[in-house]
């Protein structure tokens, strides 16, 4: 790399010439001479600074009063408008800011302008002294000796074993933080109940959807029939079961073997839960037929059975097989044929058991 010492050509190679550190260095001139401030020499300036500090403290008092007046003068009721809340927030903030900044800048100005500003030098002391160290070593040695732990290995070893095991209950006692996962992640509410297929209903009101409602270019956000009536675990079920329903030209769908019957006249339903880390993949571009996840931008192509075409997801979105019942409403013919949402350790075995 050459020579950065001074750029002169008659030095060659690295700068690390012999005895660089012995090269004569500049003498430390010591702390620069103290320079007096205006307030140190001119009593008028000192008086002025004094008044400025007092003024700043005065501003703080004003700030405190602003806060108190705002707090008691503006009451919040059920009918208070956003503008009232905004006004109160701003005035409380201004009051606090004045109160605090007044004190803060006042004290600092006082310290800067009027308190002595001589720079002083303090010696550093060694962090420890050899004498102390030796005394400490002796003490520790004595203590160890008095316990006799070196002479009695049985005590030492059993103690080590006991101490090593003792924390285990502290870990085990957290075992009831949650239930075992089992295969809960593999199933959703869509599975037909008592032979009755679940209707696709609108999110959030839960009204059923007719196939004829879904015109080309539409996107429906769908929850299973009966979700809103659940007493317990509603959000847990919703977190797995939400589906996006879309209709496109049947010619642009390219269903693979075995999935030809999973749609109805170009209407298809896909899980809304991203296979990456589980955000709702809810952005449907009706012309490009892309689904985009707003969290990490995974993009799925609806015309290729929601294959990942961009972003961090690795697996396609699971498809929900749908059909139409006697009254023309859309129903799920079965549960998803794979676990929905992000991947997990047991996912593959769950998928196999779901399909077997």
């Amino acid at each position, binding site marked *: *790399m050459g020579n*950065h*010492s*001074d750029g*002169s050509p008659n030095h060659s190679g690295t700068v*690390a010439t012999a005895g660089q*550190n012995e090269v004569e260095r500049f003498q*430390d*001139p010591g702390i620069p001479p103290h320079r007096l401030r205006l307030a140190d020499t001119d009593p008028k300036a000192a008086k002025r600074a004094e008044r400025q500090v007092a003024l700043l403290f005065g501003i703080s008092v004003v700030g405190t009063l602003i806060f108190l007046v705002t*707090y008691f003068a503006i009451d*919040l009721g059920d*009918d208070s408008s956003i503008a009232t*809340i905004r006004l*109160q*927030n701003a005035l*409380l*903030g201004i009051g*606090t800011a004045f*109160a*605090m*900044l007044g004190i*803060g*800048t006042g*004290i*600092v100005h006082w*310290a*800067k302008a009027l*308190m002595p500003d001589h*720079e*002083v*030098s*303090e*010696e*550093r002391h060694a962090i420890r002294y050899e004498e102390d160290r030796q005394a400490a070593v002796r003490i520790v040695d004595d203590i160890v000796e008095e316990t006799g732990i070196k002479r009695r290995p049985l005590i030492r070893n059993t103690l080590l074993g006991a101490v090593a095991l003792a924390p285990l209950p502290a870990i085990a006692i*957290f075992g009831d933080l*949650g239930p075992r*996962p089992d295969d809960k992640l593999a199933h959703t509410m869509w599975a037909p109940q008592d032979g009755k297929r679940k209707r696709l209903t609108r999110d959030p009101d839960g009204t059923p959807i007719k196939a004829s409602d879904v015109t080309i270019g539409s996107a429906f956000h769908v929850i299973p029939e009966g979700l809103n009536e659940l007493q317990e*675990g509603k*959000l*847990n079920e*919703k*977190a*797995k079961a939400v589906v996006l329903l879309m209709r496109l030209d049947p010619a642009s769908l390219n269903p693979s073997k075995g999935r030809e019957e999973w749609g109805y006249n170009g209407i298809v339903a896909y899980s809304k839960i991203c296979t*990456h*880390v*589980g*955000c709702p993949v*809810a952005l449907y571009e009706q012309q490009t037929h892309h689904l985009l996840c*707003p*969290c990490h931008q995974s993009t799925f192509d609806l015309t290729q059975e929601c294959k990942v075409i961009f972003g*961090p997801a*690795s*697996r396609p979105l699971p498809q929900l097989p749908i059909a139409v019942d006697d009254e023309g409403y859309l129903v799920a013919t079965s549960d998803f044929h794979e676990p929905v949402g*992000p*991947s*997990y*350790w*047991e996912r*593959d*075995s769950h998928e196999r058991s779901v399909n077997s």
Partner: protein
Amino acid sequence: MSAASTAEPAFVAKTKTGRITDFVDSRVGGSGILREFGRKVFPDHWSFMFGEVALYSFVILLLSGTFLTFFFDPSMAETHYDGGYVPLKGVEMSVAYSSSLNISFDIRGGLFMRQVHHWAALLFVASVAVHMLRVFFTGAFRRPREMNWVVGCVLLILAMAAGFTGYSLPDDLLSGNGLRIIDGVIKSIPVIGTYISFFLFGGEFPGTAIISRLYMLHILLVPALILLMIVMHLFMVVVHKHTQYPGPGRNDNNVVGYPLGPVYAAKAGGFFFIVFGVIALMAAFFTINPIWNYGPYDPSPVSAGTQPDWYIGFVDGALRLMPGNPYGWHVEQVWFGHVFTFNVLLPALVPAGILFTVMFTYPWIERWITKDDREHHVLDRPRNAPTRTAIGVAGFVWYSVMWAAAGSDLIATHFHVSLNDVTYWLRALFFIGPVIGFIVAKRVALALQRKDREIALHGRETGRIVRLPHGEFIEVHAPLDEYKRYKLVGFESPQVLPAVPNEHGVVTRKEKRRAFLSRWFFEDRVAPATPAELEAAHGHGHEAVEAAHGHGHEAVEAAEGSKSLTH
């Protein structure tokens, strides 16, 4: 040692304050402490204040947080909102979200306190980060402060943990989706991921337990740990005394600055109120975390621009950058019937892992390379340690690329570029950005060092142009006084440390590697100017100017005599 002073009955304090102090002291024995601290010297520099900003933000967090706990209810039970915010009236939501709305709309000053709390939280983590950057770039982590650096790193992680647990508490749509992302990341952990997820959420996501669990961590465990770490941190600062920048009168054996009482205490104390005032101003005029916009958490909706708070952003950005199927190859793999979710695991764990591992161990890495085991109390100016500065900049660039990736959608919409292109560019920068950052930072540091040399030797440019009798124009340089010069030349400039054989006379492979790294570290260096060089340069400079004024004498001779040393 206080016992001795209290034992003297003759002592009578002069002022009332003195008498009160004496009363307390004679009962708890504080004289020793006061004697030690009362006039303790602290160096003064603006960059030394970030630690205080962090400390004060934390105090403000405790104050505002305590207020919020009086009104917040961490229950996930269902309720229907019946508060002052009309666009959510009657909407089904959790009690936690409803009580957060009540704090914002129905409790006087509640919104202000919420905004103070959240702005202070963002400032807290930001000032911790800036403080650590200052410590890194000035080499303040070197012996004897390595352990305090580690405590600082722990504090950064705890600060992030405190922030994240708090971010999720209102149970709004934004933080709920954030939790869902965390759940997805946890599920990707091999073998135990599913179990951890179920244990954390008390069953399936989202369950009804997570908010109260996070609440307990947020208001008890994490702040207690932070407090403990702060105590350790400050204790070590007292033991070590503060570092100081190089300059006249400052060396490794002293500390130059202002005594704690009264100047420094006044400044530091006053600064607390200033930090509080600035946070209050932000809370007064700028909305933060408008939970009323996001709505209650529901697993179905999501908002565009779903991002975590800034300090978690780099992990989110890394998640965004990772391609799931690069060139058609699936990153997620099924081996032996089990799923290895590398497209989540790698970006979630590797960058953060590398960042924190290097951060924690850097003092020892540098110590090993440089074999520098001396105590350092005088800081390096960043330019005087070019390789360390370059490493820091490379790391910061790397972090910033991931950070920017967390806002890739906002970059796309605000600069009218394609979201996909932003991602492609950031993926490339993820790898080449740190390299460019390293090279540029190192060159800039070396250039600044040369400029320092130039100024030390030839003085400051005055901007005054003088024409010499033979027609040449020169700019007059004003010489520096010795104090200013010492600041530019009084630094250590370590050199390459070649491999040294061990006691058996063998140069081990590890030692060779160390020597290689040492070369890389110190090869490019600009040595500080020496008095001899100055003398030569002085003559050189004066030669021209003096000649112009027509009375050159010994300066010319000096220049002649040492021409070989200068240019």
